[in-house]
């Protein structure tokens, strides 16, 4: 009964909303044009990355915070987990992992570099890094992570800290995250590079601290 | 801040600050606590004396602090306020002495005296509140500060009494709040004024009448008007000093005083009369007077008998207020003071009987007069005063009330007063008869304090009732002298009616 009612409600909602979507006026604000007009000042050639790290870079700053926060919760909850069982070693998977991991590292570096002018960037690069780490673990080549030591903690937090430090440093001169056009490219590259490492560690950690 | 602004605040602070300090004191610092209490009480008396002299000379004492836009926390020490302030301040001193003796070696004294001082603070605030908003603040503070005192003993009966007390008073507070905000929305936020601040055009009459009902019901709970009186006998589980000061004087008088303010200074006596509000109020008062006395007849528990007597007597004040005309006003106001002095005497004595001999019931009173002659003498004076015997304070108030009833053309009220006096006699005389004329039993229920020579009990317990008994006589004998409660009540009535006419 409840299932039926909820399903019916959801269906009605979807139909009504779709009907509302079919006739919409043109947007009053033309943001793509504004993005295009300011691209030159952003220090980045690709519009999505420009929005992500410059025009709306503040969103990204908070987003990295959310990710780090999730990792801290995972650590807090997983800290009492029983001893971890070793993964079953599969020779095929191990061989594959041995070959794939360095390639993935390479791919990550490329993605980071490509982000400046085509789809790519720190998050994608970090995700590939993390995938490599997970692959190695699943193949039994890398152990699951225990309680993180000082170095690992610094690695996890470095990207966020650098981002924060840049934001705070720029605040002394102007607004929050207001990159001077001349420095924008360099600063963003610095942030992206450290973020790649930290995001890779965090994403891998979300998996490896739990397993 | 000028001195005239600071004085009302100082009156409040003289009990608030010692109270807060006492909370912080450890249980064992008896001397420091007593010193703080007495210092506060004496300082308050000195301040009150200054105020009395000033008001008699026509000075204005007022203080204002904006809390919300257009709504002030406002105090004023006018003649009416001082009537109540003086009564409470004087009786606070004696009750403090009494309580120090009564609670010797009892646990949780810091808590007790702390809340006790807060109660007195609340009473001062109620007396000097210059608008309904301020009045409400202190009215609720009184509820909150008395609850820990009612349940002080921590027994299940105490809890029951405390819960009933809260149920009545918080409900009353809610009605009062509704009435006040409603009035505020209709007529704006105004201060108490001689002759009232409401006028016929402010709102439809029916709304004015409903608001009056809400307000009176709100304060009527504390004034223990029938049918809102059920908490008072239950609250008698409190220790004797609490019953004495709070349930004979501060709490019930806060209610009665609220009725005085609402009738005279919110609605104005003439406007209230034109809305046909006074006659129903008088009827309720009359019913309460008779019903309270009637119920008192059947109480064997001494404190409960006194409690029902309080129910009855407080409504004398309400009756006086509801009698249209200055004579009734004077009678009601003077009874506010007289009843306080007489009733506190009775409660002190009841506490002495219980504390010294373990007597809690009327049926155990046989021969108590021989063992404790001075206490019984004080009790007798208080009881005779309640009956309205000549020379006592009670006679003065009853005479003025009866004259007021006649002047207002409410002759039935005189019959109410007579009936009540007869009933008073019927429930007090048997006590006196037992105490003085019946032989003492072989053993007292629980003799806790042994007599030494002429000292029948601890002197801190004995002194306060003797003093208040003497005051009962003095207020009766020197009623027409300057400075007496009666003269002060006449001054207030003159000021209320000077504006009204």
């Amino acid at each position, binding site marked *: 009964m409840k299932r039926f009612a909820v399903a019916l409600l959801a269906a009605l*909602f979807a139909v009504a909303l779709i009907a509302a*979507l079919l006739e919409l006026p*043109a947007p009053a604000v033309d943001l793509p044009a504004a993005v295009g007009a300011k691209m030159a000042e952003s220090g980045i050639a690709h519009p*999505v990355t420009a*929005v992500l790290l410059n025009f709306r870079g503040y969103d990204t700053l908070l987003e990295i915070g959310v990710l780090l926060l999730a990792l801290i919760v995972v650590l807090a909850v997983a800290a009492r987990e029983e001893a971890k069982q070793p993964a079953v070693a599969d020779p095929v998977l191990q061989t594959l992992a041995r070959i794939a991991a360095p390639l993935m590292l390479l791919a990550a570096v490329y993605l980071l570099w490509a982000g400046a002018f085509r789809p790519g960037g720190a998050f994608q690069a970090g995700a590939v890094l993390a995938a490599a780490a997970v692959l190695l673990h699943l193949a039994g080549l890398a152990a699951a992570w225990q309680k993180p030591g000082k170095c690992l903690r610094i690695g996890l937090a470095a990207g966020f800290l650098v981002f924060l430090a840049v934001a705070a440093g720029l605040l002394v001169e102007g607004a929050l995250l207001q990159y001077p056009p001349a420095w924008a490219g360099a600063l963003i590259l610095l942030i992206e590079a450290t973020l790649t490492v930290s995001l890779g560690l965090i994403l891998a950690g979300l998996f490896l601290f739990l397993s | 801040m000028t001195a005239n602004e600071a004085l009302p605040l100082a009156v409040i602070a003289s009990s608030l600050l010692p109270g807060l300090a006492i909370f912080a004191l450890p249980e064992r610092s008896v001397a420091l606590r007593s010193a703080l209490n007495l210092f506060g009480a004496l300082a308050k008396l000195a301040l009150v004396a200054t105020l009395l002299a000033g008001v008699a000379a026509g000075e204005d004492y007022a203080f204002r602090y904006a809390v919300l836009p257009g709504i002030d926390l406002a105090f004023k020490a006018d003649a009416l306020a001082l009537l109540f302030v003086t009564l409470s301040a004087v009786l606070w001193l004696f009750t403090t002495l009494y309580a120090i003796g009564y609670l010797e070696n009892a646990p949780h004294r810091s808590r007790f005296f702390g809340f006790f001082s807060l109660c007195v603070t609340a009473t001062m605030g109620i007396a000097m509140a210059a608008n309904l908003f301020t009045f409400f603040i202190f009215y609720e503070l009184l509820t909150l500060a008395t609850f820990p005192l009612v349940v002080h003993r921590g027994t299940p009966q105490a809890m029951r009494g405390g819960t009933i007390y809260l149920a009545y008073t918080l409900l009353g507070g809610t009605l009062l709040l509704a009435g006040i905000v409603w009035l505020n929305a209709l007529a704006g936020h105004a201060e108490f004024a001689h002759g009232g601040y409401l006028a016929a055009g402010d709102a439809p009459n029916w709304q004015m009448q409903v608001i009056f009902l809400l307000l009176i019901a709100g304060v009527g709970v504390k004034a223990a008007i029938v049918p809102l009186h059920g908490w008072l006998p239950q609250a008698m589980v409190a220790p004797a000093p609490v019953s004495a000061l709070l349930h004979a004087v501060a709490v019930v008088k806060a209610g009665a005083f609220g009725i005085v303010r609402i009738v005279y200074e919110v609605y104005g006596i003439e406007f209230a009369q034109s809305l046909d509000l006074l006659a129903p109020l008088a009827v309720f008062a009359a019913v309460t007077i008779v019903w309270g006395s009637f119920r008192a007849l059947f109480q064997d528990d001494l404190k409960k008998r006194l409690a029902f007597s309080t129910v009855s007597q407080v409504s004398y004040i309400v009756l006086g207020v509801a009698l249209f005309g200055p004579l009734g006003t004077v009678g009601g106001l003077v009874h506010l003071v007289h009843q306080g002095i007489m009733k506190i005497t009775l409660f002190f004595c009841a506490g002495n009987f219980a504390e010294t001999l373990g007597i809690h019931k009327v049926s155990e009173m046989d021969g108590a007069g021989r063992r404790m002659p001075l206490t019984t003498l004080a009790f007798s004076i208080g009881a005779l005063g309640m009956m309205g015997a000549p020379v006592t304070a009670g006679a003065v108030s009853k005479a003025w009330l009866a004259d007021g009833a006649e002047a207002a053309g409410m002759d039935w009220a005189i019959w109410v007063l007579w009936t009540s006096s007869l009933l008073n006699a019927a429930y007090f005389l048997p006590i006196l008869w037992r105490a003085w004329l019946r032989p003492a039993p072989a053993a007292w229920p629980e003799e806790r304090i042994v007599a030494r020579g002429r000292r029948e009990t601890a002197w801190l317990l004995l002194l306060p009732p003797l003093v208040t008994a003497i005051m009962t006589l003095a207020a009766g004998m020197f009623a027409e002298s300057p400075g007496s409660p009666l003269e002060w009540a006449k001054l207030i009535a003159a000021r209320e009616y000077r504006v009204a006419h």
Partner: protein
Amino acid sequence: MTSGLIFACAGVVLFAMGTAGVVLLDHLLRRILAFNLMGSGAFLVLIGLAQRDGMPDPVPQAMVLTGIVVAVAATALALALARRLFALTGGYGLPQSEAKDGND
């Protein structure tokens, strides 16, 4: 009807399905998946609706990238909690009613 609008409508349907799933399903893993469906639906609407006239708009794309990371974080958190709960209780669902004792 442009492709953007079709994406948006599909997004609405996914969102409705996801919401119903979160409300109805008991198995924690399924509820977490349903939540992801819900989020993806909203992302589709965001991107699809913005380019309903055929012109790509980088702003919602960047927003969705941010949103995806947030959703990943939330999903990881939910999985960690569910896993831990499974380790403690051995059940895949939430206990029906709260017991009255035994915490803090």
